[in-house]
């Protein structure tokens, strides 16, 4: 059982979704919750069985698919992917449990379960082709969710979402094929296994081209400036559940792929592109924060804030040291929790008022105190207050990048100011002041279904903010091995210098652990 737990995790929801077609309409919700619940517990079990002291891949599975070209069904997880998988199952569960959609619930739940399969698949895949297949497959359910349950502009939004990300990933596919070809040239055998690729040291100019090819695919997914414009449309039109999954998990695919592919495969190119990407990240952070400040629609505020936070994640990733990369991986989890929760919260008010314009609200704090409290907590988490989950990630990401550049970090640090500006002003517009609109006076506070979804998120947001160790430690161990690999592979003197060598400093770590 333990040998195939990853396959089980991937295909159990898909199988359950197939069976879902024959489940009756009125019991589909219970069925969905049960399936997602089992899946979630499976993933928790995975965590339980995971050995945090091992930095390499665990629960590896392999089966040949196309042996002639070295394409294998290869799965495995490490500390970096483990928690994103748990996050995916967690959010699917929460999404189904707090589903308020009334149109075609059955189709929605089946779609969500399929989506869950693709998400877990992406994060568990260790073969580039398998990874790519799941990566592309994940577009389909999301396209369906936006296109079938979305707002008035849903067709435009979903087509834009699909084509944009698809175009990017095609370039990425070409990159993958080239990578495999180079591997073939170097070794004489074909392989699409990422772990095999890790062992390959490419000349720097090849690295740069391949890096760019991979970058396009990832950057559109993240989405990085200036490829970000599909996101506000997708969020604006998607139903609540779609936005939640999109923000919490799907965007993380891009940043995860940076850590999984770009960094260890192309260490020299990563150093080469570090500053340009950092500048893009800083533009993302500040520019989208400003755009968020100008929004009138509260969902768009959250959508743009997502982009802004993704900028911090990218910055941390390209810090290329343990602090920064661990921080950025942690921030992926953190941002997943926080932005997912914020989208759920926006969904709550949309269900009641069928509008997302902040000018329609005002004074909600006195009408819906519980809602205001949870929103406030999540907003503060999003702003990055210490002892909330986001702070740990943001602090470590910025701390890591500070090693590389003082000025850029100082500029990126403006994130904590501009972040506070748009969030607080949005909160003020929606929740403070007098209740000005007649319709708002009789709004009902959060009901049980909504609390079921939100309270666990609040708990996680604070728990991991106060005690991030259970998550941070496995992440740290895996990131250390990635960084060490990068250092060993790096060829240029600059790269050797910028990427720290950990084997020397191992002594210090063990000393600190002895404290």
């Amino acid at each position, binding site marked *: 059982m333990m040998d195939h737990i990853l396959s089980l995790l991937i295909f159990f929801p898909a199988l359950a979704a197939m069976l879902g077609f024959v489940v009756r309409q009125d019991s589909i919700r219970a069925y969905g919750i049960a399936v997602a619940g089992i899946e979630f517990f499976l993933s928790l079990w995975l965590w339980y069985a995971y050995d945090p002291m091992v930095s390499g891949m665990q629960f590896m599975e392999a089966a040949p698919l196309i042996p002639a070209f070295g394409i294998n069904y290869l799965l495995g997880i490490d500390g970096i992917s483990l928690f994103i998988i748990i996050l995916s199952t967690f959010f699917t569960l929460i999404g189904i449990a707090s589903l308020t959609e009334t149109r075609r619930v059955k189709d929605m739940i089946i779609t969500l379960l399929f989506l869950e399969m693709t998400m877990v698949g992406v994060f568990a895949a260790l073969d580039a082709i398998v990874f790519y297949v799941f990566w592309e497959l994940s577009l389909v359910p999301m396209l369906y969710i936006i296109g079938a349950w979305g707002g008035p502009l849903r067709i435009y939004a979903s087509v*834009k979402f699909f*084509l*944009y990300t698809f175009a990017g990933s095609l370039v990425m596919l070409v990159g993958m094929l080239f990578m495999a070809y180079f591997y073939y040239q170097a070794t004489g055998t074909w392989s699409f296994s990422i772990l095999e690729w890790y062992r390959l040291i490419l000349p720097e100019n090849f690295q740069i081209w391949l890096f760019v090819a991979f970058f396009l695919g990832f950057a559109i997914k993240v989405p990085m400036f*200036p*490829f*970000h*414009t*599909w996101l506000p449309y997708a969020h604006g039109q998607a139903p609540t559940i779609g936005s939640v999954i999109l923000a919490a998990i799907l965007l993380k695919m891009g940043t995860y792929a940076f850590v999984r592919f770009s960094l260890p495969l192309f260490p020299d190119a990563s150093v080469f592109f570090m500053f340009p990407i950092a500048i893009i990240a800083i533009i993302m952070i500040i520019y989208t924060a*400003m*755009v968020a*400040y*100008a*929004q009138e629609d509260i969902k768009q505020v959250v959508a743009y804030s997502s982009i802004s936070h993704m900028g911090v994640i990218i910055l941390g990733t390209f810090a290329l*040291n*343990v*602090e920064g990369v*661990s*921080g950025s991986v942690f921030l992926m989890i953190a941002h997943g929790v926080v932005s997912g929760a914020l989208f759920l919260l926006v969904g709550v008010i949309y269900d009641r008022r069928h509008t997302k314009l902040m000018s329609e609200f005002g004074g909600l*704090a*006195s009408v819906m105190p*519980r809602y205001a*409290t949870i929103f406030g907590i999540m907003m*503060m988490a999003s702003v990055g*207050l*210490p002892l909330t989950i986001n*702070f740990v990630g943001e*602090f*470590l990401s*910025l*701390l*890591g990048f*500070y*090693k590389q550049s003082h000025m850029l*970090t100082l500029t990126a*640090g*403006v994130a*904590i*100011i501009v972040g*506070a*500006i748009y969030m*607080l*002003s949005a909160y*003020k517009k929606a*929740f*403070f*002041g*007098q209740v000005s609109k007649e319709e708002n006076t009789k709004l009902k506070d959060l009901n049980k279904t909504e609390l079921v979804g939100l309270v666990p998120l609040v708990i996680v947001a604070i728990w991991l903010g*106060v*005690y*991030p*160790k259970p998550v*941070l*430690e496995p*992440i*740290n161990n895996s*990131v250390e091995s990635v960084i060490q690999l990068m250092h060993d592979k790096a060829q240029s003197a600059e790269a050797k210098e910028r990427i720290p060598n950990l084997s020397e*400093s191992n002594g*210090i770590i063990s000393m*600190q652990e002895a*404290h």
Partner: protein
Amino acid sequence: MELYLYIALFAPLAGSLFAALFGMSPKTKLTGYVASALLFASFVSSAVLLNYVMSGHTVHVELMTWMATGDLYIPFGFVVDQVSVVMMMVVTIVSTVVHVYSIGYMDHDKGFNRFFSWLSAFVFSMMVLVMSDNFAGLFIGWEGVGLCSWGLIGFWYQKESATWAANEAFIMNRIADLGMLIGIFLLYWNVGSLQYDVVFAEVGNLPIAVVTWIGIFLFIGAMGKSAQFPLHTWLADAMEGPTPVSALIHAATMVTAGVYLVVRANPIYDLIPNVGIFIASLGAFVALFAASMALVNRDMKRIIAYSTLSQLGYMFVAAGLGAYWVALFHLMAHAFFKALLFLGAGNVMHAMHDELDPFKMGGLRKVMKGTFVMMTLASVALAGIYPFAGFFSKDLILEVGFVEHHYVIYTVLLLTAGLTAFYSFRLVALIFHGEERYKLFGIHPHEAYKFMLVAMSPLLVLAIIAGAFKMTYYQLVINLLPSTQYHVHSEMTYWIMTIGTQLFVIAAIVFAYKKYANWSSVPDGTSKMENRFCYKLLWNQYYIPKFYEEVFSKPYLELSRIAWKQIDLKIVDATVDAIANAIYKTGENTRDIQDGNLSSMLRWMVVGLVVLLALAVAFTVGYNAVGA
């Protein structure tokens, strides 16, 4: 002793969570009692710890790991040493008093439970701030008090001005926090740890330039919290919050966190006297600057807020000149009398139905005897008259300036002392003396609840006698802080200075009384003085808020709109759409080729053939050219 430490630290948190449980339910006095009782427990534990520390020990605990990755290791560690225990005492005393007081003050408010939840949470954050044994923990408390300050300033969230002020305070603080964060990053990458003991042991080995930057960035953090120029505007606006909040947060504790940081980081600042001089100069400037704005203001709470600002300036002068123990001493003394002053102002406000303009009061001493006495004494302490607390701490700072040969600073501070005395007694005179102008507005003032006055009395006592503890305090803190004594060399000069200062201050007080004690009318903006340029300049706070509004807030909003409407929608997104449209259009246009006319299709086929052939030729030529 660890038990006491944990009680001192977590009792406020328990109180806050308890009150939060009732946050949504209607007001129950219970929350107030429980929160106050827990605060009192915290106070008692702090006192026990103080006793323990006095005997020469310190307590240091490590609760658990917070963040550990790479070489970074940050625990939740707490230390009770000579400096932090002083702060703990100040915080717990003032907050216990304020809690009890608030039970009366917030009696009629709907958000009673919520208020106590926020207030206790603030105390918890403040305790974390002062007790932490590392810079990251300090930062937790630092941001935590910022959050609670946001919640409490905007406590009456229905008021636009209150929520605006709350956001302003939070954002201003965030700007400074960025500086602090950068300071922390610098420390980590240069020292490898954020623990105070490690940092202070290592900092001497660092290049002086790095230490200077660390000092500057940490001080930027301190500037925000302590509302130093140019980040000072939020403090006056923060007076929108309930008055007990102003007493606790914006007078006694949170705003002094910046001073605490500089005092705590004294091994860093000792290495960089130039930064110290800058801090002292800024402090002196702010002292005068704030006092001048207090001269003409017509909002009781804002006057006190400016006086707070001015006193913070004094503290920074002391800290900047290396007299850390003096700064901390003034911090302590100031906490007592300023909190008292604020609470007194709260009583007046209650009596006057939230009227804040002292010109609309007058003659209140007849109805509010207790408050009158307390506020007068607090003002005397603030003015620094012997033998009140202010004399010992404030005159000491003047002496420090003199002894360190910074005569400009000394002169500025002396002048400020006079101004302080003037505006304090202007306020007292306007409120409690003269004609009963409030009758014009049909207000029937009444004295506050008895227990509120009783609750204030410990502060009154401390404001009077705190100076007596000077030597005890000194003996305590020199274990950790540089033990420089500041004595004017000649006995003669010392006496001239002291008596001169006293006379100058008393003269200012008398002048204030003369001018305002018999005030009879409410100014309406027509008198000659009110139209003078100086008056207008001070009245509008040197036009700084307006300047910020015009130069930062509005352009930022405008720029944001442009970023969204012009750049994001019209450039970035339009480019993407244009690419997509180009492809669509190409399809639309080339669709005509498929007009069903087989003849033209054949022609197109030949065109394709020709193109392919041409490519073949071109490639062959190109290939040969490259090959050759």
